[in-house]
């Protein structure tokens, strides 16, 4: 006789117990662990359900309930003036108030707001004031959160001689209600005689705020049980299809470079990362390139090819499964056999010419310069499997929550009579919003912020090498690290290639970044790179290192990393009164102390 039926041990109604048994049957341990995390998360969410009859528990990380937030969008200063007056009234009435210009309002706070007043003008033909563009964009996008717990009111300013009188105020008023927030009283639409509407609106706003904030009795705050960190189901072999939230070009249209800021959603993936980690992307190859190769080889795209247990049309092999941009030595040799061309044979035989050939050309160049006959099967077998591309993550989860941001330079150049692109950068730069990219996290244990928050951090990140440092600065700001931050950045032109310029300016202003040294190589007759800036600030740099700073270099491996290393060594030698050998030893010691990390590619 078997033991007691297992159902009896499960605190579920019988039908659900049976369902559960069928559900877990055959699942591997990774999936079972994921399930446990999933249900723990559900449990936590239920505890905070607003529909609960009893007094709601308050999540610790929200903004305090007892606060009024006033946000204004102002072009000529009228909305600002009114908002300031209202803030003064509220403060004089003893209410905790914060007043923010729309472009200084942290959008992530919105879901935690409980009482919000917006004072906003409308420009021209129904446009928001410049400082509110970002807020209006966010609120009207699908990224706007549900606002069931928010109470609000809106005061719009405008000029009734225009058709779209107070359009922005009306739009925000409607949208907030649409997102579930509660309108406390009717919107005010103030004309050029502003006070006619503004005065009574302000009086009602003050009265409502006093009523709401006084009535909320302080509740005991409860730390929610964190759901067990789910062991993720998504890996390199089983990548997560991350939704593309943003794909924004960072360089201007007249820049020689096309560098993009990509935002991917990790929502519901269970994935997490630390600053310094990389995101692996399984990029499909550019369809146009696949078709060009098939054309050059005169192969039929639909031919079924079976290889290593999989049967797919040839085109799909080339799109998703095979490396067709970067050349591999084995493939060149195999192709040379078939091409039987003296020049190619000479290249293959040369230990100098072959590496150069491999680095300068893509497979399409080889195939068109030296024609050869391939059949579909052999072609697939001879090509190397497609490898994922890794990108340093340009964000911190503590700042962007369930997202990962990337800074991607589109590789595009003309050579050997045709245009060339990089497979992954082309894939990412052509992703539409709402499309998906197969990704996974690749931890980078050797590129980590210091555990000790008081340590200073020196970051050298020209070009897209700046990516992880965006995450570093976000992280250190979010956790309130007391150590100082110093960034060296460079690119060709200040006016067109200053990646994330406005964010760095804000970081400096807010004291989240203490020093920013810039090198725009082509802005003057002589080239200036980050290594010159390192030499110019050698004395202070050495002082920071002596004070225990951690040093990071990220970016191009071929020349930059070497030049930067030499500049560091020379700075240490000069300002530390050391010989070149001792300066090298100093840097080696930093490496062994895990205070000098490099992420170069």
């Amino acid at each position, binding site marked *: 006789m078997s033991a007691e039926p297992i159902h009896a041990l499960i605190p579920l109604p019988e039908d659900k117990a049976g369902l559960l048994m069928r559900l877990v049957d055959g699942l591997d341990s990774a999936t079972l662990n994921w399930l446990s995390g999933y249900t723990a998360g559900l449990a936590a969410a239920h505890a905070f359900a607003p529909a609960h009859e009893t007094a709601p528990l308050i999540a610790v990380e929200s903004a305090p309930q007892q606060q009024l937030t006033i946000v204004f969008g102002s072009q000529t200063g009228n909305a600002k003036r009114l908002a300031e007056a209202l803030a003064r009234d509220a403060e004089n009435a003893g209410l905790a108030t914060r007043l923010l210009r729309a472009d200084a309002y942290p959008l992530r706070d919105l879901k935690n707001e409980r009482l919000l007043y917006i004072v906003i003008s409308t420009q021209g*033909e129904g446009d928001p004031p*410049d400082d509110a563009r970002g807020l209006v964009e966010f609120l009207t996008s699908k990224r706007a959160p549900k606002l069931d717990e928010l109470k609000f009111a809106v005061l719009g300013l405008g000029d009734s001689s225009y058709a779209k009188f107070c359009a922005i105020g009306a739009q925000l008023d409607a949208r907030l209600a649409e997102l579930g927030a509660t309108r406390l009283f009717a919107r005010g639409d103030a004309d050029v005689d502003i006070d006619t509407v503004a005065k009574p609106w302000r009086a009602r706003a003050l009265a409502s705020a006093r009523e709401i904030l006084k009535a909320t009795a302080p509740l005991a705050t409860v730390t929610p049980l964190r759901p067990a960190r789910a062991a993720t189901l998504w890996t390199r072999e089983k990548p997560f299809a991350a939704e593309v939230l943003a794909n924004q070009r*960072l360089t201007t249209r007249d820049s020689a470079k096309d560098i993009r800021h990509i935002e991917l959603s990790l929502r519901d993936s269970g994935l997490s990362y630390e600053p310094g980690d990389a995101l692996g992307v399984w990029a499909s190859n550019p369809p146009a390139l696949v078709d060009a190769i098939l054309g050059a080889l005169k192969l039929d795209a639909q031919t079924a090819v079976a290889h290593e247990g999989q049967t797919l049309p040839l085109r799909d092999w080339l799109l998703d499964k095979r490396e067709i941009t970067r050349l591999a030595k084995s493939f060149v040799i195999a192709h040379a056999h078939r091409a039987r061309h003296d020049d190619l044979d000479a290249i293959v035989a040369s230990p100098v010419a072959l590496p150069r050939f491999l680095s300068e050309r893509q497979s399409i160049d080889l195939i068109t310069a030296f024609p050869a006959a391939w059949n579909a099967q052999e072609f697939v077998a001879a090509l190397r499997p497609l490898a994922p591309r890794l990108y340093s993550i340009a964000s911190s989860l503590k700042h962007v929550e369930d997202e990962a941001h990337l800074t991607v330079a589109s590789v595009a150049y003309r050579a050997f009579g045709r245009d060339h692109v990089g497979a992954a950068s082309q894939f990412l730069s052509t992703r539409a919003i709402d499309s998906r990219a197969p990704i996974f996290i690749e931890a980078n244990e050797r590129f980590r912020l210091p555990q000790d928050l008081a340590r200073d951090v020196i970051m050298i990140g020209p070009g897209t090498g700046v990516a992880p440092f965006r995450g570093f600065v976000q992280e250190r700001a979010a956790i309130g690290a007391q150590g100082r931050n110093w960034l060296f950045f460079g690119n060709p032109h200040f*006016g067109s290639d200053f990646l994330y*310029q406005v964010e*760095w300016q804000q970081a400096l202003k807010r004291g989240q970044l203490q020093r920013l040294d*810039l090198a725009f190589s082509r802005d003057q007759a002589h080239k200036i790179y980050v290594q010159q800036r390192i030499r110019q600030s050698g004395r202070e740099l050495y002082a920071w290192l002596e004070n225990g700073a951690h040093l990071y270099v990220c970016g191009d491996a071929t020349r930059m990393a070497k030049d930067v290393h030499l500049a560091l060594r020379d700075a240490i030698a000069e300002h530390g009164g050391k010989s070149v050998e001792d300066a090298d030893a100093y840097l080696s010691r930093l490496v062994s102390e895990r205070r000098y990390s490099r992420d170069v590619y």
Partner: protein
Amino acid sequence: MNAPLSPVELIKSASRRLRGTLLESLADPVTGAIADADTQLIKFHGSYQQDDRDLREERRVAKLEPAYSFMIRTRLPGGVVAPQQWLQLDAIATSYANSTLRLTTRQAFQFHGVIKRELKATLHAINASLVDTIAACGDVNRNVLVSANPLLSRAHAAVYAHAQALSEHLLPATRAYYEIWLDEEKVAGNGEEIEPVYGSTYLPRKFKIAFAVPPTNDVDVFANDLGFIAVIDNGELVGFNVSAGGGLGVTHGEANTYPRLADVLGFVTPDQLIGVTDAVVTTQRDFGNRAERKRARLKYTIDERGPAWFRSEVERRMGFAFAPAREFRFDHNGDRFGYTQGEDGRAHLTLRIEAGRIADRPGAPHLKGLREIAKVHRGEFRLTPNQNLIIANIAPTARAQIDALVKAHGLDGYARATPVRLHALACVALPTCPLAMAEAERYLPQLLGKIEARLERHGLRDAPISLRISGCPNGCSRPYLGEIALVGKAPGRYNLMLGADAHGQRLNVLYRENIDESEILDALDPLFARYAAERDGSEGFGDFLVRAAIVSIKPTTAQAEKSA
């Protein structure tokens, strides 16, 4: 008045005579902008911070700051410049600015698109051409205007000399400009220089002075805070009729801001010029509104306290009373195009430069053309107050060569353009002016084409109508003195103003508010029809509209004087 001072007053008083933190701002490599307070102070040095508004939004989403650049304006009393100077300024336009020269409605050059890290080098280069930019903007006396092409050469030369002397007299005393841009050594007392005329916080607002040589009112003398109307007897300058209190700036929707024409106060002799200027300027300095900048111009000071008070205060400071005004007459406030001859027999060629913008365009390489002319010309150039250019004092032997160069480079448009095109004025507006609400300069060619077509339909192709367009109500193209004016309100929308005269002695009035191009053309069309049918001889369009009561104009003091 106990109202708190406007923030700009505090910036001026903390600035150590206009130094502020300009040096630090120029040295900051993280931004192409200067600190907020410095944007007010740099005006006194002849520059405005601007950004390319066409690129604002795309740069914002790219997480880039606006495309900041600086406009630089020259101080050039009477707009006179030598050919060698022209060549140097042309070179500066190409190496530092956006390869154009902009002639303003105050006879000055403007450079656009100079980036911060080249600002000092640019100002160096301008000063090396013996032109400076001091006080071209800011709360000080601006560029002094002088009628550019009067018939009376000797008197004109005398007037010009007075204008230069007055401009120098009213230069700020601070050494800030020389220290910051020209690397002059700092001397004792820097930061605390005595400003004998302006005082330590300069004027409450801009101050504009113009000299008119009747019958030419190209300078629109009554639109200036202080005007000097030359009185000439037997070819000699005997003195000036003085006018005060003109100013055109308006703010939409603020009824207590309005354009005003100056009142004639009386007559002074040339030796009394500095005395009357100091009296008017210091009166404005001491009594102008420093709390509310949009009510700070001299016109409001006079209207608030009353013209009688103003006259007596000025006379008190001068130490003498005005003599009675002498008779004068203006016949036109436009330019006279093509060849004119001065009484001394020298020839002047007035070219039309559309919206004052000298650039190389396909089929019209004006910048190059004028450079070539400057290489051979032995006279001078004069910028007109109507955004045009006079090649002045052409020797008879040089005429053929100059004519050939003018023709070869498409600069001979003046010979073929319709009168409405010849006399049209437009301010810069977009993409650089931060105050613009609508297009002006960039829209002018298209607008003129449409207006010309309508005029043609009514047989009015040769009607000399003055049309002026401004991108905002500040009125830098003097729209309130246009027979037809468009004042920008929103992208593609303007207030249509009608009814000024063509002498600069009567303001226009609002006819239609906030309308687009098709509504503007539809509003004008029936008026053109009536004008064609009903005009009285050579009656002007503006005068016709008033006579036919299509618009109704309150007579101003200036007009009352005229008809007295």
